[in-house]
């Protein structure tokens, strides 16, 4: 895990003074966060601190909630993805997402992967893409003989790796993972963590997790969020994971990671 300070150029994605509202309620306030390319960044914090809200703003998933809106800027390749001339569909193609509960489509394993590629206009050899994506997600050996079977016949951990494979098939730059292991057993969880490590050589990964050991084990950088007095989520501290977990600068971070949080 690198201890290098953040370089000032070329962030994968960057939040600048971001506030997110649901109706009149400010769910998170004044977030400034720079995500390093091809690293794993974990967002940790207690329930209700806005972790999921924040990760969902990276690919404009919050747009699907009618009352949600956002102030501030999210810069991706120097462009604010919330500018009115940006198509959220294209944003989501480049910034993929894996969800809390495995949510494969009720289609075959093959179709689960091919579908996303197809709606994104993939013209190449679909069989190759399916195999490659499944291999990348470390699932190929387990499912290569049952590609035509329903994805729902897989175990929870396999389903989640299928969801990762399906995201990879669209060839995003950034993969968002919203508590991807919360519905999985420890062994399946470790498999996903190994996979994340593998994928971080090519992709930028942002993961929300409730599990502090997971953040400590699997991430390069950690952002600690908590709830402010007005119930809005705020980012308390952000830095290399080893520093956050061994030498936190803020008392609140220290309390949380040592389990003293109320």
């Amino acid at each position, binding site marked *: 895990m690198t201890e290098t300070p953040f370089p000032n150029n070329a962030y994968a994605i960057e939040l600048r003074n971001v506030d997110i509202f649901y109706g009149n309620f400010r769910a998170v306030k004044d977030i400034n966060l720079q995500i390093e390319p091809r690293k794993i960044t974990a967002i940790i914090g207690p329930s209700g601190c806005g972790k999921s809200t924040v990760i969902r703003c990276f690919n404009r998933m919050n747009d699907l909630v009618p009352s949600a809106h956002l102030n501030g800027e999210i810069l991706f390749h120097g462009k604010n993805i919330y500018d009115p001339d940006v198509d959220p569909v294209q944003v989501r193609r480049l910034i*993929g997402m894996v969800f809390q509960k495995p949510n494969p489509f009720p289609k075959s394993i093959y179709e689960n992967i091919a579908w996303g590629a197809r709606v994104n206009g993939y013209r190449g050899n679909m069989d190759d893409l399916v195999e490659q994506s499944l291999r990348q997600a470390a699932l190929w050996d387990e499912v290569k003989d049952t590609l035509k079977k329903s994805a729902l016949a897989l175990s929870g951990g396999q389903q989640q790796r299928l969801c990762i494979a399906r995201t990879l098939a669209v060839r995003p730059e950034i993969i968002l993972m919203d508590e991807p292991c919360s519905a999985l057993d420890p062994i399946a969880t470790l498999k996903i963590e190994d996979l994340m490590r593998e994928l971080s050589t090519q992709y930028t990964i942002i993961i929300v997790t409730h599990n502090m050991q997971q953040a400590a084990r699997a991430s390069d950088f950690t952002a600690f969020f908590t709830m402010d007095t007005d119930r809005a989520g705020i980012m308390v501290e952000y830095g290399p994971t080893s520093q956050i977990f061994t030498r936190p600068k803020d008392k609140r971070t220290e309390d949380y990671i040592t389990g003293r949080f109320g």
Partner: protein
Amino acid sequence: MEQEMFRPTQQTQAISPFDVHASSALIANLRKRPRWGERFIQGFLFFCGAVSILTTLGIVFELGKESLLFFQTPEVNLIEFLTGTKWQPTIGEFGVLPLVNATLMTTLVAMLVALPLGLAAAIYLSEYASPKARGFLKPILEILAGIPTVVYGYFALTFMTPLLRTILGSETVQIYNTFSAGLVMGIMILPLVCSMSEDALNAVPRALREAAYGMGATKLETALQVVVPAALSGIIAAFILAISRAVGETMIVALAAGSGPNFTFNPFKAAETMTGYIARISGGDVGYDTPDYNSIFAIGLLLFTITLALNILSRKLSARFREVYE
């Protein structure tokens, strides 16, 4: 079913297994209780369920009995009944196909209206409409479902038919015709298709939509390729129920489709449907216990069989297309 609940009492926690006296008190407490109130309610609920089943059995029995009378008439035989293309009881022609054909034609026209429009409206309401638009449109659709069919019948006769005659010419379109009746029947059934399909679409978990959006799918791709297939079993059930409803609809066709059996494939000509015929004959101008009169039971039985077959088909199809989701 007796499901006696074990209620932990204060004693359960306090006593040790070696306290014989307290144990026997606890065991006494475990004794089954009669619970007459529960039994009464259970019996009543069973009775309510049984009423509908018994009614159905009664109908089948009555239809069967009267149909038997009809088929015992010398000039009638089953093969001729099912394959004959002429229905003229006065001269002893009992071929049911003209009536069946008219029913199928009105149903087909109705389905061509109700299925695509109903499904499209359901997709709009469930995937596109803002909560405000939805709150406004749903009640309107429900009003459409609440209009009495006799009103629809006159709507077909006095509005739709003249309209068709203006557009297509009065020499093409007869005053009574199956097309107009079918169109209006489609409008009548549309809310049913829409609301059942919408329920099915709404039941598709949000997580599936998010998965699709998260991969860069557009709203339309998500709706048509993810949500609709996931809801397909419910949508098919809605379609089949709509067909059953159209096959059985009486008032609109009795008023607007025509009142004379006519074996034609031209939807702009008058033709009497099975239900229309039953309504007319039971209305009274035919003597009781004549073959004409008894024939309506045979036709009723045939209708019953058709709708039953559709219901069975519906179950088979929904099971076949079921895309199970969690």
